[in-house]
């Protein structure tokens, strides 16, 4: 089972066309294994991207270097998934 320990979902809001173009390029870089939950659309429109633990710091450094601000939308994806799984199992047990 694939685990997402340490994965974060970042919200990034491009402030100008240059940042927008950079994020669009980033969308096509498959090597970072970024998963765009909400794709790049327009200036001021939030982009949501899931970054695996191994590329998270690199991504944050790149964004900082480009002066692109971000906030974590989900701090630890696996923690949320564990919670979801727990809820499903509790429900299944209560049925039994």
């Amino acid at each position, binding site marked *: *089972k*694939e685990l997402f320990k340490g994965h974060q979902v970042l919200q990034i809001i491009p402030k100008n066309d240059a940042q927008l173009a950079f994020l669009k390029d980033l969308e096509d870089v498959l090597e970072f294994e970024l998963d765009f939950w909400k794709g790049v*659309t327009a200036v001021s429109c939030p982009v*949501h991207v899931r970054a695996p633990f191994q590329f998270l710091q690199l991504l944050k450094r790149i964004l900082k270097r480009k002066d692109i601000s971000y906030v974590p*939308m*989900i701090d630890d*994806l696996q923690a949320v998934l564990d919670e979801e799984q727990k*809820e*499903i199992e509790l*429900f299944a047990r209560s049925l039994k």
Partner: protein
Amino acid sequence: PKNTDSFNYSRYHKLSEIYSFQDMLVAENPNLVSKIVIGQSYEARPLSVLKFSTGGTNRRAIWIDTGIHAREWITQASGIWFAKKIVKDYGSDPALTDILNNMDIFLETVTNPDGYDYTQNSNRMWRKTRKPNPGSSCVGVDPNRNWDSGFGEPGASSNPCSETYRGPSAHSESEVKAIVDFVVAHKNIKAFVTIHSYSQMLLYPFGYTSAPSKDEAELHSLAQKAITDLASLYGTRYTYGSIIDTIYQASGNTVDWTYEQGIKYSYTFELRDTGFHGFLLPAKQIVPTAEETWLALMAIMSHTFKNPY
């Protein structure tokens, strides 16, 4: 659960539970609901569609599908709730009763069953189908880029490792081809609503081109009515417009194809939320999401019923 009344609509369910739910609903409502299998997924699961019909032959019809993107769990869960809502409201809600006395409704609750099963058991974040891609270690095709409408144009990826991989050819995915064959053979589908999450949007063609559709004014005004009705319940705010203007260019998408097949009322939803939870919408939001979406669906279905073409 022994019947669909004791089914818990406030929880996410495994594929087997959804299949059982469908069979129970059919068994409980034999004069209204039947199950048809329109094809098989790559992993040989049945592609089941619930048909709500009060009789007649090849009546004008409305198509609704949920779960074409596997990880968008709120959509499959909403689809189950819609199915129960239809049988509950038929005979008591005059608008729905009118619709069903004259039209059929088809509802595919798990459009991408292989993907859904994979999200339940292996990778919660899976979006695509599960067919291997020859020559690549990456699996699956984005079934919302696989339709024969602007296929291969900008707005989809040719790389099998991308989440928006369009596939080797239009309708290469059996999950897509099954719907294509069904729609083409039926010939009388008048509204087609395909449901995604998340972003809170109601979108109409086109996605592959910025050229407006010839029905844009009507589609726009109906979308406005639908999202206004939706917001009346919990105040959830939706945006609306053509796919390309509202989100981004998306070629080979479902509703561009259905619209080009002559289905005027072709819409795609993006359900809750806008970024607090994303694809991990807490289960307690399933019923409220389905309830508010139902109001918008009713607006589209009623308009389709009252405006034959």
